[in-house]
């Protein structure tokens, strides 16, 4: 379903239709009150409506054509702003509907005193144990306490491939509403009905509990103050105008309609009308990246992140260590070593074992072969730390090939009467120092050489970290490895710092230390032992495959469980703030041109010389607008249309490139600052020409 939604166009006809009806529904004063800037426009529109009604009642039609057009465009301004918000909400609502349909009441098989009983899912309480078998819908959020099963979570993640959930470990969390496809699991319920993950997801995507984020509040204060000062600037204009009219003996064109138009044009309606749409679409963009943010505040904080904690495994390196090279002991041919290494690993199903087979094939041209039936596989055991095979050789004797940690092989060959070459010991040390793990290979009592196992850094990750550094973000790698190995991988991946031999306590402490220095820390994690660190971090992204504890502790859940997602999360957060800044700048810069449209229109009659029509202030009419009426109307129309024109930008966000702050700033300033100064001059002039052309004025 999410996959479906990702494809939906920004202006899907269904969403647009719904948004249009919603924009009328939002004319409710109780909703308008929430947005003070637009409330002013709303009140102005009401006042003008009364003016127009009074004119109709009194049959005074002198300014009627002008007044009614201004009135209509003010209502449009309000509706356009409502529409922007409605369309931003629309996508979330559509998604919430599908989620809600999924939340139908299911029958749970509760186990009580060893007996299975059927109860409604809504009657489940925290701590209940329920049984789910293939085909069952999981009745509520919980952790698998027994068994292993594959679960179809496509309803939530959009991913059609089923995922494995098993008791113990870090993949135990299951979500109510998802379906078990195979096997049988027992689930301990961890959320009461109504507060489940699904419920929270519905309320988040719907924006039902949307609160203003801290930055949004600060911006609102600024916008409100600007609104107040512009109201004052226009309100006090009455005194200045009266004086000037008396002094010059001329009339100005400063009717109530014109003053109202001036107010509406000056107050920051562009950003005011789009502010909530920007916030909602930020959450929505996260969702489209399959990240479920638990609050708008978290999305915003993501933009401020300057320290990032990343797990080594799975994020920076491919999950497991891989064999990268073979080093034969002096006097042994590389082919013999490769042959032995491959034979010892063929039946070995561990990722390391498989990587040795792959290495032998890719680098030494040894194809996989069938082992003779008498072959005996000696699997790895924690006690011996050795694995290998016993197989019949060509001459009929048994070949015993072993691979394992240096110390273990040392003991192995010594007990067989062999010697461990000193030279190899030195090489092994060097390998370990470079951050890799050496494995020794022996046949019988003879040591053949080393297999070098290395953590392989993911392709392209180095560039990603360089990008982050340009964004001003410090990356810290977390790993359980020893400091030596950690340092070498950190250097190879290009992270700024690392925590070796990390424990939950050291992670938590590091986050606290960074925070006390004023940094904002993001962390991504999945396991229960990550929970404290996730809770402490400013942005904690939990993997959906993780444990319930981790999902509760984080303030975002990555439905794809992809650790590099954190980078996109940060970008979305930054985009959100940039879009607000850009539109605020644009809105304020716009005011300059509106003054040049409306003020000459109002005052060009003042101090006109005896015979002349126009006073000195007509010189300010730099756009050469047709008449006072057309000038005011054009400004009002431009003001309304620019909101619609900027809806796509508000929803998609200003494009973010990982460059330094100065570069981004100059780019956006040129675009929205300078653009905001110039565009309205062009726009207002064009509208003026159209108005005159179509004889609307």
């Amino acid at each position, binding site marked *: 379903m999410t996959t479906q939604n990702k494809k939906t166009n920004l202006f899907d006809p269904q969403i647009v239709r719904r948004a249009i009806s919603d924009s009328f529904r939002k004319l409710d004063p109780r909703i308008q009150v929430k947005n003070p800037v637009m409330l002013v426009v709303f009140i102005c529109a009401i006042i003008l409506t009364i003016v127009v009604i009074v004119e109709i009642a009194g049959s005074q039609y002198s300014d009627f054509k002008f007044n009614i057009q201004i009135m209509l465009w003010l209502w449009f301004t309000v509706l356009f702003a409502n529409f922007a918000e409605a369309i931003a909400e629309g996508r979330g609502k559509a998604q919430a509907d599908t989620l809600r349909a999924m939340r139908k009441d299911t029958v749970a098989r509760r186990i009580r005193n060893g007996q299975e009983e059927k109860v409604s899912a809504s009657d489940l309480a925290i701590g209940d144990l329920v049984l789910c078998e293939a085909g069952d819908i999981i009745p509520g959020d919980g952790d698998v306490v027994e068994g292993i099963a594959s679960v179809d979570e496509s309803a939530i993640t959009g991913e059609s491939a089923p995922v494995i959930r098993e008791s113990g470990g870090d993949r135990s969390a299951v979500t109510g509403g998802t379906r078990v496809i195979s096997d049988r699991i027992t689930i301990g319920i961890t959320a009461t009905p109504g507060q489940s993950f699904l419920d929270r997801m519905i309320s988040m995507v719907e924006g039902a509990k949307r609160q203003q984020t801290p930055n949004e509040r600060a911006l609102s204060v*600024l916008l409100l103050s600007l609104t107040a*000062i512009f109201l004052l*600037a226009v309100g006090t204009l009455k005194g200045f105008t009266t004086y000037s009219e008396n002094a010059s003996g001329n009339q100005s064109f400063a009717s109530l309609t014109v003053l109202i138009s001036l107010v509406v044009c000056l107050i920051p309606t562009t950003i005011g009308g789009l502010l909530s749409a920007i916030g909602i679409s930020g959450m929505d963009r996260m969702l489209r990246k399959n990240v479920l943010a638990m609050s708008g505040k978290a999305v915003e904080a993501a*933009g401020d992140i300057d320290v990032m904690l990343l797990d080594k495994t799975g994020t920076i390196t491919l999950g497991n260590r891989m064999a990268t090279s073979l080093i034969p002991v002096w006097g042994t041919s590389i082919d013999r070593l490769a042959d032995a290494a491959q034979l010892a690993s063929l039946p070995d199903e561990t990722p390391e074992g498989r990587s040795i087979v792959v290495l032998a094939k890719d680098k030494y041209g040894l194809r996989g072969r069938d082992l003779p039936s008498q072959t005996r596989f000696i699997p790895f055991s924690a006690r011996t730390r050795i694995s290998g095979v016993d197989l019949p050789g060509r001459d009929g004797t048994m070949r015993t090939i072993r691979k394992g940690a240096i110390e273990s092989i040392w003991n192995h060959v010594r007990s067989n009467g062999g010697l461990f070459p000193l030279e190899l010991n030195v090489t092994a040390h060097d390998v370990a120092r470079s951050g890799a793990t050496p494995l020794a290979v022996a046949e019988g009592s003879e040591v053949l050489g080393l297999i070098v196992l290395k953590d392989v850094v993911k392709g392209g990750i180095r560039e990603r970290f360089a990008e982050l550094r340009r964004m001003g973000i410090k990356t810290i790698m977390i790993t359980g490895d020893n400091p030596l190995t950690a340092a070498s991988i950190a250097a190879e991946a290009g992270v700024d710092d690392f925590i070796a031999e990390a424990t939950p306590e050291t992670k938590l402490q590091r986050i606290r230390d960074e925070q006390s220095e004023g940094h904002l820390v993001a962390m991504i994690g999945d396991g229960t032992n990550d929970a404290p660190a996730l809770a402490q971090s400013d942005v904690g992204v939990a993997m959906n495959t993780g444990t319930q504890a981790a999902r509760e502790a984080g303030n975002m859940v990555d439905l794809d469980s992809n650790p590099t997602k954190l980078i996109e999360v940060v970008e979305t957060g930054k985009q959100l703030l940039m879009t607000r800044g*850009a539109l605020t700048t644009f809105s304020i*810069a716009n005011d300059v041109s509106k003054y040049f449209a409306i*003020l000459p229109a109002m005052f060009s009659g003042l*101090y006109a010389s005896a015979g002349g029509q126009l006073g000195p202030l007509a010189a300010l009419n730099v756009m050469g607008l047709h008449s006072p009426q057309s000038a005011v109307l054009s400004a009002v129309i431009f003001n309304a249309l620019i909101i619609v024109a900027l809806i796509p930008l508000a929803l998609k966000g200003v494009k973010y490139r990982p460059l330094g*702050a100065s570069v981004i700033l100059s780019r956006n*300033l040129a675009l929205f600052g300078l653009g905001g100064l110039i565009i309205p001059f062009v726009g207002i002039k064009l509208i003026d020409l159209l108005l005159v052309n179509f004889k609307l004025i």
Partner: protein
Amino acid sequence: MTNTNWQAYPGETTLSDLTQPLGLNVQNFLSAATGIAVMAALARGITGRQSSGLGNFWVDLVCSILYILLPISIIVAVILVSQGVVQNFSHYIDAKTLEGGSQILPMGPAASQVAIKQLGTNGGGFFGVNSAHPFENPTPFSNFIEYLSILIIPSALVYSFGILVNRRLHGIMLLSAMFIILFAGIGISLWSEFHVNPAIGGLPFMEGKEVRFGIFPSALWSVLTTAASNGSVNAMHDSLSPLAGLVAIFNMMLGEVVFGGVGSGVYGIVLFAILTVFIAGLMVGRTPEYLGKKIETRDVFFAVIGVLLPCAVVLILSSISLVVPGGLAGLSNKGPHGLSQVLYAFTSAANNNGSAFAGLNASTPYFTILTSIAMLLGRFGVIIPVLALSDSLGRKKYTPPSTGTFPTESSLFVILLISVIVIVGALTFFPALTLGPIIEHFLMIGGRTL
């Protein structure tokens, strides 16, 4: 006390020789020192690390007087006396003029007061016509010294602020923003004074200028004194050309940002810097920070109040005065110039300048009361939000800068800061200004007078 020093009185006739040095001069020192103390509190707020408390006002006050204001004042006063500024307690001298008439030459301890009035951006002259009076400003050299003393402390303090917050470069950036606006103002003012008046055949405006100085020093002074929130004059601003008058009014309307008052100029421009960082800083994709402090709702609120309250006061009081009889009675000119006079009066009062357009008869009870209200609001309506802001900043954590941080030490920042200052000022006052100096300018170009 409010560092405005609006003079509706001519000092030599209404006040005794002792009231001036003891009553007024003390205020000259204290008000300037208060500005420095507030600035110091702001710097402590910015450098504070989750701390409360902004220092001791009395210590700051005494130190700024003892170590800054008093020594420089003494030096300047001595130089002025050497140029012939009177400094005595003599009786007024009855002198015979060359034509045989008689004239009373006022005497008194002027030099000491002139020094601090310039240095402390107070501007209240010993004599009614302020530094146009020969006993306050006798020679070109004294004129130069008085220029210099208008700017020296306010501009030096901007630099000190940079040092106090450990960002010397930031202080220099603020200073350069001020200088750019100042020079732009001087340029416009001089151009308008010298070039554009078809009515008198393109001749420069001499009426109302002190003939001993001529136009250049008069126009220069008018820009300096309004920029620096000083308010002393060496010519009557009423007689400036419309655009030069506009520059003078607009300088004050911007608030105390282009040097501004002693100390108050620093906190004035910091308020604007915070707004700049907030508006433009969002565009880099981070919660805006100013000198390592995150700018949040409270901070925006206080900054906006500090910037907009004086604007609101000017607009409301001027607008009222232009329609009520009490206000109209004070005008000496009808037409747009009358509007400029009223606008100038309240702008000057609310922005702690204290210079006057002179044409306005401001000693009526009506204007005395309203301008006093404007002065109080314009001074404390800014100081209180600034102190609240300092406190709020002081309690915050310090955020170390990174490459993702909005740069406050670059030329881009200077350009942005200037744009925000000019646009906020222009957007707020453009309607009022069009009906005053701007219309006057166009009328004059058209060769019409009213």
